[in-house]
């Protein structure tokens, strides 16, 4: 019994490495920069992290399901530009613009999912080129000259507050709680882990793998569209370039948060910590006014250290497989969870 508890604690520690790092960074920040813990600065960090955080949560769902989504930045940009184009700065049109943006995110997610499941295109390739297609169409339609101006209602997503808490942060928290609940406490979540852990086993266990995969891309597309609206609201302006590089940043946050790109392991809480770690590091090097070369060295080194610790701790080690058992058709099954330790929905 006590051995089981110890194992659980050890496993829990492995999963929380990113939090340990975040804590360490916060302690260092408190020592080197007294301004860091001012509430306004902390809210700034959270607000800055909101858009990429929402994006990364969508990416987490896809990664846990065994895929990857490189179209998220393109969806985000499309959403931001579309909301500006449709509203033309008028609040009255926000009710039309937001559902349309979300629908576009879902549609692109559906396209990704169908390419991966029905046409058997590798997720990396499918989402990369869907992203390129979306970017190209956006530039074509707007002739690379979107209007840019946003209505006050959209700006409220980035600049508004509820009490002292920015709306963007509340939205980020809401998305994180909902996604975490879905992944850890619902049948859909368990199936997402199962498909990512071992799609063949999941299928043999009765899980409709294609449907789960498509659902993961749908959620990613939807959240990317939400992130686009939050990002342009934060800036108060919509431009073609907003969100460039966020695709890789979102993947980095997911991995720093402890997920495995092969699928089957990862948590929303880890991703949130990964996003916060990256945002906090940026804030600290700027507060300290480090030269740009040192800024990059410090940020790169800390992230690498976190990732290296994961590796050393064995958190990313290959999972022990359940004993192989013969099944019709000669496939081997490892059970729907496909995991003997760590990272699953109940870990």
């Amino acid at each position, binding site marked *: 019994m006590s051995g089981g508890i110890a194992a659980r604690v050890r496993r829990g520690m492995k999963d929380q490495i990113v939090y340990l790092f975040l804590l360490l960074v916060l302690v260092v920040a408190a020592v080197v*920069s007294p*301004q*860091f813990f*001012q509430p*306004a*600065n902390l809210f*700034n960090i959270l607000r*800055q992290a909101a858009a990429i955080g929402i994006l990364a949560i969508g990416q987490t769902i896809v990664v846990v399901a065994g895929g990857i989504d490189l179209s998220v930045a393109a969806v985000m940009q499309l959403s931001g530009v579309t909301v500006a184009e449709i509203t*033309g700065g008028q609040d009255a049109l926000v009710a039309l613009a937001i559902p349309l943006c979300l629908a576009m995110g879902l549609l692109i997610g559906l396209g990704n999912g169908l390419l991966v499941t029905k046409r058997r295109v590798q997720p990396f390739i499918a989402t990369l080129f869907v992203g390129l297609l979306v970017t190209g169409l956006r*530039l074509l339609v707007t*002739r*690379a*000259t*979107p*209007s*840019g*101006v946003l209505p006050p209602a959209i700006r409220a997503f980035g*600049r508004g507050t509820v009490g002292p808490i920015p709306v963007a942060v509340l939205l980020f928290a809401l998305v994180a709680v909902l996604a975490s609940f879905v992944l850890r406490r619902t049948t859909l979540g368990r199936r997402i882990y199962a498909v990512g852990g071992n799609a063949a086993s999941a299928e043999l266990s009765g899980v409709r793998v294609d449907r789960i995969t498509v659902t993961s891309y749908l959620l990613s597309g939807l959240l990317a569209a939400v992130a686009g609206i939050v*990002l342009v609201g*934060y*800036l*108060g*302006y919509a*431009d*073609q*370039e*907003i*969100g*460039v590089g966020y695709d890789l940043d979102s993947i980095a946050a997911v991995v720093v948060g402890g997920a495995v790109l092969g699928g089957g392991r990862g948590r929303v809480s880890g991703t949130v910590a990964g996003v916060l770690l990256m945002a906090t590091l*940026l*804030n600290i090097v*700027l*507060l*300290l*006014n480090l*030269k*740009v*070369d040192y*800024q*990059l060295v410090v940020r790169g080194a800390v992230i690498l250290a976190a990732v290296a610790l994961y590796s050393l701790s064995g958190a990313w080690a290959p999972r022990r497989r359940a004993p192989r058992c013969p099944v019709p058709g000669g496939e081997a099954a490892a059970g729907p969870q496909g995991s003997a330790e760590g990272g699953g929905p109940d870990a």
Partner: protein
Amino acid sequence: MKGKRSLVLVMGLVVLALGGSVLGLAEDGLLPGMVDTTQYKATGPWLAGRAGLGDTNAWMTMFGLHFRYGIEEKYKDFFKGFKVTSCFWNPVQQIADIESLVAQNVDILFVDPASEAALVGAVEEAMDKGVPVVLASTKVNTDEFVTWVSRDNIKTGYLYADWMGKKLPDGGKIAVLMGMAGSSYAEDVYRGVKQGLAAYPKIEVVGMAYCDWSPVNAKKAMEAFIQSNPKIDGVIADGGQMGLGAVEALLDAGRAIPPITADDWNGWLRIAKEHSIDFLAVTGGCPLALTCVDLAVQILQGKPVPHIVEYPIITFEKDELDKYYRPDLNDQYFAVNELPEAWIQQYYKK
């Protein structure tokens, strides 16, 4: 604005001619600094090619429109086609693009280089195959091109700093927001900023960040600088988009907006008008693309052209805002340009 560019070009040629009369003509009968292009003379109509970076942001879009306006309208009887490639800042892709355009027998090749060093071989090879190369904006580290048109980026940085110095005669704390770390353009501008600030020792740079010309990154950086400094007396931003990010951060923090440097981007001018910002606009120089087309026509007619053309920098301040700001156009418009009104309306009308 349209006449101003032609005037400057003519003035440049006059200066070169005067220089030649004082210093004497070179042995080949050309004025110093001029290139003999008789070997490139070709009967028209010509096929033009552009190995471009990609017209995917506001500046590049207007830059690309100047190329198109020159070839498709100003000199439409001279050209039979215009092939454009986009490498999206990838020099390896741009090398392939150059090779492809040369293989398609373009008569003139415009290149807005993604790298000073990486493109040397491709540009030299194009020239060796008899295709005259016109470099736009960034240089390539070789002399094997016909002409290079650029803005003096170090001077741009110097102008930012000198203006800020004059705005803060008693000194103060400023933030500096530059483009992309390692980019030769951004480094030149920053070098100019440092040179300019050297004359104002009472000015302290309390924050410097490379923001990739992104307003989002500029806002994030500015939010951190605001937290670590109770008062920021000025912001040197290399362009209006980063200026916009800085202003948004200042507004969110409830701070007064100090003097800011920027450019002639309409989005910036809108913000400057809305908040009565004291600013210096240093023009970005996207019309230099049209100068490239002007020179291309001369090259293909066998007329001598300058090897290096420095595109003039125009500056203006708050008091001239109404002259440049166009509320009837969208934010992506740049005020100092050479496009006819019909093109402006077609691409930038709200």
